[in-house]
């Protein structure tokens, strides 16, 4: 049995004192950083959106000096390459190896769907900065998922009403990407437009990666009041350019990503005069957006758009939730609860709250694309305040109907 010498006693006493002194330090100094997984896209067709997301994210963290709720933030950025299988692997890495406290991402709806089951299983808070698929916050809502963007149709209900009531359009042709985002956006427009007395008389669905819109443009009826266009990524640019080549016989109204700031900078005069709707545009006059848009412009030399604002808002949501739980992000349940009751007074969207399904309630604006200060901008002409994903419809009845799709709601006026 070893005997205790004076020396070892002294040593252990010293060590014990030192330890207790450390424990007495303010909590912040010894807390490990909050780990946030950020899923972006750096290669392939979606890379442009991914880059804008990274800018929004970087800007948000810089604005907060890299801190949330008094704790340092460690951002772990991964590239999903825009592929669902890779997204799943990256999500697993973030959760199991990096042990992140929350995930911001991924970019595309099909990526979000690919990790839906996984995040339910492991229970990690996920904030989507851009995936707009309706059912993620509707019929298949996930307790661990909230969204910092609207649903595909959220702004299009407003455009449908505006087209019928204010623009007094009677008959409209729709053309949109043949995938869920295009289907859902068009369905929302059609529903509100027809409920207000308009008629959708023709619906065209070019495949997502179609090389040439010529054969579709030749089909667009010219005896109508407008063409409603719902395109994502670079397709809006191609469609508007080709449509102009064909003489643009009918005026264009559009879903927000068709003329988003992200591609507006690549467009020419073919975009001038397009009327669109959305929850974000760089020019909108809401508390906090002027500073945000000017800041992004100064730092990155381009106007913020859908993805920039989405990633920034996701980051701001997380910040607000972390503050609400006093930085104690290890309690996942509490963090998730705080996320679901986030309320921001200002920012790119202005005032925003989440509904009980985890989807933002925010202003939707009607904008007209104009050339101003030497560049194309979406100038706000009307604001619909506090728009929800259900528009004016009763949420229960809304959710009892099938999800928006290519054929729902049915178009009863085709060919008229």
């Amino acid at each position, binding site marked *: 049995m070893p005997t205790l010498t004076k020396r070892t006693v002294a040593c252990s006493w010293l060590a014990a004192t030192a330890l207790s002194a450390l424990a007495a330090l303010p909590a912040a100094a010894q807390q490990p950083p909050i780990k946030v997984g950020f899923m972006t896209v750096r*290669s*392939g*067709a*979606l*890379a*442009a*959106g*991914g*880059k804008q997301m990274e800018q929004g994210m970087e800007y948000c963290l810089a604005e907060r000096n890299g801190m949330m709720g008094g704790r340092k933030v460690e951002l772990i950025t991964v590239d999903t390459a825009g592929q669902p299988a890779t997204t799943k692997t990256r999500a697993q890495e973030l959760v199991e190896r990096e042990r992140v406290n929350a995930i911001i991402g991924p970019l595309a709806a099909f990526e979000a769907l690919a990790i839906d089951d996984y995040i339910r299983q492991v229970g990690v808070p996920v904030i989507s900065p851009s995936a707009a698929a309706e059912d993620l916050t509707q019929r298949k809502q996930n307790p661990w998922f909230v969204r910092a963007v609207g649903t595909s149709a959220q702004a299009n209900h407003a455009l449908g009403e505006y087209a019928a009531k204010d623009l007094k359009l009677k008959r409209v042709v729709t053309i949109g990407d043949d995938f869920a985002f295009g289907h859902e956006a068009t369905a929302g427009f059609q529903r509100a437009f027809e409920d207000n007395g308009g008629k959708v008389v023709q619906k*065209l*669905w*070019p*495949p997502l*990666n*179609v*090389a*040439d819109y*010529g*054969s*579709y443009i*030749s*089909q667009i009826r010219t005896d109508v009041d407008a063409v409603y266009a719902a395109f994502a*990524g*670079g397709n809006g*640019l*191609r469609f508007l*350019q*080709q449509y102009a*080549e*064909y*003489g643009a*016989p009918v005026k264009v109204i559009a879903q927000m990503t068709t003329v988003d700031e*992200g*591609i507006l*900078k*690549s*467009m*020419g005069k073919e975009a001038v005069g397009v009327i669109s709707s959305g929850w974000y545009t760089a020019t909108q006059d809401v508390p906090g957006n002027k500073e945000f848009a000017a800041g992004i412009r100064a730092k990155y030399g381009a106007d913020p758009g859908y993805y920039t604002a989405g990633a920034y808002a996701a980051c701001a949501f997380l910040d607000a939730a972390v503050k609400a739980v006093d930085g104690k992000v290890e309690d996942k349940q509490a963090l998730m609860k705080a996320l679901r009751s986030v309320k921001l007074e200002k920012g790119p969207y202005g005032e925003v709250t989440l509904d009980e399904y985890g989807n933002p309630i925010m202003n939707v604006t009607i904008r007209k694309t104009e050339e101003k200060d030497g560049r194309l901008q979406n100038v706000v002409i009307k604001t619909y305040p506090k728009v929800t994903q259900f528009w004016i419809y009763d949420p229960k009845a809304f959710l009892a109907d099938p999800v928006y799709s290519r054929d729902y709601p049915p178009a009863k006026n085709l060919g008229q």
Partner: protein
Amino acid sequence: MTFWVSQSLNALALGGLLFMLASGFSLIFGLMRVANLAHGALFMLGAYLGLAAVKAGFGFWAAAATAAVAVGLLGGIIERTLLRRLAGRTLPQVLLTLGLAFIIADACLMTWGGDPMRLPPPPELSGAVRIGDAVFPRYRLFVIGASAAVALGLWLLVERTRAGAMIRAAVDDVGMARAIGVSASTLFTAVFCLGTALAGLGGVIGGPILSVYPSLDQDMLPLALLVVILGGAGSLVGAFVGAYAIGFIYTFGQVLVPDLAYVILFLPMIAVLSVAPQGLFGRRLG
């Protein structure tokens, strides 16, 4: 009537564009038996280089010529330094060109960013013309004419010149061509340059219609393969017929049976391949 006129013009323009894309691929495959999977990437590189030249102040035509020459030179370098080492080994060659496709695509993304960009048509060709009741973009009429001119030029080159005779001889039997004094080595490099230059030119000509964006290569390569498989690998006539056939099938298919656009595109290929596995105008490769 208007419907048939305007959609036929659409089909001809698309077919013309596909011919520009596929003729180079077919030429290279016919002579060298190399399925150059970097062809789509070179098409995209051509479009980006053309755009860069236009932004640097070149006119559209000078930009098109610059891009074609630059991509052709790159093709020559690829053939001389890389493909040559793998002569006769099909699988390594295919993997090499596939790897090159990824590298070129990523290099484009790094250089020009992910934003889609528009390549405006030359001012004298912008706007639309009225043909009967149909309205048709002037630039697409030019594409129809230009692709026909390229087709005629290639046909004259292969069928009516000494160089063409050498190409035909080497396509039929490289060993015999060598034996009678054809320098197959020079010929291979020249044809690879020509084929890739056509891809680069096609990229610039296609730019005003397709716009220029990061996955343009992935959208175009399958169409090139489709044309070549349908028309028959290595045959110029095959590429010509295949390109316009696909142009018409695709255009009218997606207009008349919109829900089956892709099925319609691949159905004739299956039909042709089950009857003539070498394609419509392909020869059995020895």
